[in-house]
C-alpha cells in the first residue's frame, strides 16, 4: 500500500504544492491547516508528517510534542518546514522530536529527496 504523509501548513499554496508533489510520487496525502487540525486528523496509518512551524491555534513545535506523545506515532519521521530566520526554531523543533527539516523556499525535488531520506 502507498504510504500516507500528513502535510500541515496554514498556507494553502504550500499545502497544495507539497500535496501535489507527494501525490505525484505516489504517496497518499492528508492535509491539515494547523496543529489542532493536524491532531484531530492524526489517526490510522500516517507514516510521516511534514509541518510548518509558524501556525495559528497550535504551532508546529507544540504539534511535534503532541505527536510524539502518542504511542502509535512515537517513531514516525516528522519533517519541519523552517525559514532561514528561524535558526533557533530548528533546534527547538529537534528537541521536541522532529526528525529533520527543510528550509523554505524549497523545490519539489528537494522535498522528495528529504521524504525519501527518512521514509522507506
Amino acid at each position, binding site marked *: *500500500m502507498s504510504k500516507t504523509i500528513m502535510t500541515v501548513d496554514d498556507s494553502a499554496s504550500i499545502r497544495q504544492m507539497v500535496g501535489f508533489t507527494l501525490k505525484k510520487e505516489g504517496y497518499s496525502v492528508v492535509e491539515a491547516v494547523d496543529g489542532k487540525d493536524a491532531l484531530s486528523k492524526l489517526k490510522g496509518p500516517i507514516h510521516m508528517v511534514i509541518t510548518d512551524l509558524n501556525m495559528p491555534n497550535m504551532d508546529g513545535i507544540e504539534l511535534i510534542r503532541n505527536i510524539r506523545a502518542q504511542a502509535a506515532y512515537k517513531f514516525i519521521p516528522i519533517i519541519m518546514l523552517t525559514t532561514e530566520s528561524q535558526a533557533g526554531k530548528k533546534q527547538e523543533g529537534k528537541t521536541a522530536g522532529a526528525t529533520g527539516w527543510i528550509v523554505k523556499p524549497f523545490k519539489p525535488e528537494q522535498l522528495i529527496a528529504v521524504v525519501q531520506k527518512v521514509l522507506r
Partner: protein
Amino acid sequence: MAGDDIHRQAFREEADELLMELEASLLELEAQPGNAELINKVFRAMHTLKGSGAMFGFDDIAVFTHDVESVFDRVRNGEITITKRLLDLTLGSCDHIKWLLETPDAANEAENKGPELLAGFRSFLPGQEPQGAPGGTDDAAAPQQELEKVESIYRIRFRPDPMIFSSGSNPALFIEDLGEIGACKAFLYMDKVPPLDEIDPFLCYVWWDVLLRSSERVEEIQDIFAFVEDQCELVIEPIAREDEACESLISKKLGEILVERGDIDPEILNSALSSQKRLGDILTSAGIVSEHQVESALAEQQAAKEFKDRRAPQTPAAASSSIRISAEKLDLLVDLVGELVIVQAQIKQAVAKSGDVFLNSLSEQLERLSDDLRDSTLGIRMLPIGATFNKFRRLVRDLSAELGKEIELVTSGEETELDKTVIERLGDPLVHLLRNSIDHGIESPDERQAKGKPRAGVVSLSAEHSGGEVIIRIADDGAGMDPGRIRAKAVERGLIAPDAELSDKDVYSLIFLPGFSTAEKVTSVSGRGVGMDVVKRAIDQLRGGVEIDSQRDKGSVISIRLPLTLVIINGLQIRIGEEHYVIPLSIVEECVGLSRHGGPADQSQIINLRGESVPFIRLREWFEIEGTPPSIEQIVITSVDGMRVGLVVDNVIGEHQTVIKSLGRIYRDVEGLSGATIKGDGSMALILDVPGLLRAINEQPATYREN
C-alpha cells in the same frame, strides 16, 4: 514542471485573502494597539507571504516582506510598540504587495513604492543592514567551487545516541544512504546490546564502522547525517585517495589500524606483538577488542588492497560479457533456490532446537549464503520494462489512425527492472489502459483545438522504483474524468448508494467495478463495459494496486504499483485451528486482540480501532474450519486499496520470508488464495489473496451471513 502555474495561481489567491485579513487586522489594531492576538495575526500573515512567495517565484514579495516581518517580530516581543506611523506603513505595504502581485515583471519603476516603504520599516530596526532575499539563495550565491572529484576511501564511525529513535530517525537508513554514494562496507557492532530481557526496544544499542569508497567530499558525507549531527558520534576520516600512493596503507599492519582507530593502546599492541600468534586472535582472546572490531580493521586492509588492484590497468577480459540462457533453465534455477531457502529454514529451526553452538554458526553461514544466492538468482530474472514499452508504439500509432486522433507516446524509465513474470503478465492490462486513455482520454484534434490545447495529445508511459515497488504510470493530457458522470452511472447501476460519501479518488476507482462503462458511445476499441475490472483483477493477481487521479480537461494519471518479484514475499504466518495461512506483510498494518465479549450473537463484525470502525471477517467461519476459537482471538488489520479490513485468526505466528508456489491448474479459480508456501516442517501453508477474498465475500454476502 506543469504544477508551477497552478501553484502560482494558488499563491495569488491565498495572498489576496491574506492581504484582506491583514488589512482588517491592521484596522482593528488601530483601535486596540496592545492586542497580542492581532499582532500575531499580522506577523503570521507576513511570514506566510514571505515563505510562500519565495516558494513560488515571487521573490520581490519575499524580499519586501522580510523586513516587515522582522519589525512585527519585534512588536511581538514587545520591543516596538504599535504607532500610527507603523500602521500607515504596514497598510501601505499591503497595497505594495498587491501591486507586486498584479504587476508583471517589467514593472514601472516610478510606481514602485517598495524602497520608500522599506526605508520606513528599517528605521524601526536599528543597526540592521539592508538585507537581501532571505535564505534559498545560498546555493546560487556561493559559486560552487568545481572541485575535482577524487575517489577516496573513508573510515566512518557512526555511534547513534541511544535515544535516536525518539526523533523518528532510523539510523540504518544513513548506512543505506552511504551505500548510494559509493562502494561501502559496513560493520555493525552489537556488543552493547543487552540480554533479551533487559532490552528497551525504544533505545538504539548498535553502532557502525563503515568503509566507504566514494568520490564525494567529507562535507557531502556529513550532509547525509545532517539531521542527526547532534544525536550521534560521527567521525569521518579519509584514509586513502586515488591520486595518492596508498602503498603505505596496504602495508599498514592490523595493529596500526586498531591503534589509529583508538580501539587499543600502543602498549597493548607491543605486548601482544611479542607473542607469536596472529595479532587478531591474541587481542580477541585477551578480550581487548571484539572479533568484530578485528574483522572490521582487516576489511580496511582488504579495501586498500582492492583499491590498489582497481587502479591497475584493466585487462580486456574484464570487459562485461553476457550469455543467453533459456527461460526454462532460469525457472529451474529459481525453483531450486526456492527449495534451498526452504531447506535452509528447516535446518535453522532444527539447529536452534538443538542448541549446538557450532551447528548454529554453520547454519548462520548457510543462511547468509542462501540469502545471497536467492538475491542474485532473482536478480537474473529481472528485465528492463523498456521492451514492453516499445511494443506499445505501434499500438498507439494504429489506434490513433483508427480513431482519427493525433497522439504522441512518450516513455520514460525504460531501464526500470521487474521480474520477468510480472512483465509478461503486465502486458494485457497495460494495453487495456493505454487503449482507454487513447479512446476516452484524448479528445479529437478539433475538440482539443477548441479547448486551446495542441491538436496532438500526449500519452506518457513511465516506470520508476519507489521503495520495494515499481510504479508504472499511464498519463494523458486529455479530457480527464468527470466524477459527476461516473457517480451518476454508478448510482444508476446500483453500484453505490445515491447518498454515498465518496472522494473524487474513490469515485474514479468505481470504474474498476465489474460491469462499469461510462462511454456514451461504444467504440471498437474500448467501452464494452468489460475490461477495467479485468485490469484491476490482473493487477491484484500480481499483488499490485492501481489508482487514478484526474483533472477536468488536464488529463488523467493511472498509477500501478507492483512488487519487484512474484517469487518471494514477506509474509505473516497465522493459525486457525490446525490450519496455517500466510498474509502478505505488505498489506498488514497491525494486529490487535479480540475477546469474545458479545458472545456468538454478536454479529456486528465491526471493531472500533482508536475511534475508527473497521469491519472484520472471521476467517474461521469463511473457511469453514472446524473447532472452537480461543477466548481471545487476534485480528490482523490489513489495508486493501486504502480500505482497512480485519481478519480474525486464532493466533499470529510470525513473520516469514515466503517462497510462493503456484496452487496449479485445479485451484486456479479459487478466490482468496494466491498460492502456497512450504512451512518449516515440510507441509504447506496457503497464501491469502486478501483483495480476492474480499471480492468473493462481497459477491455472496447472503450465504456468508447465514453462517
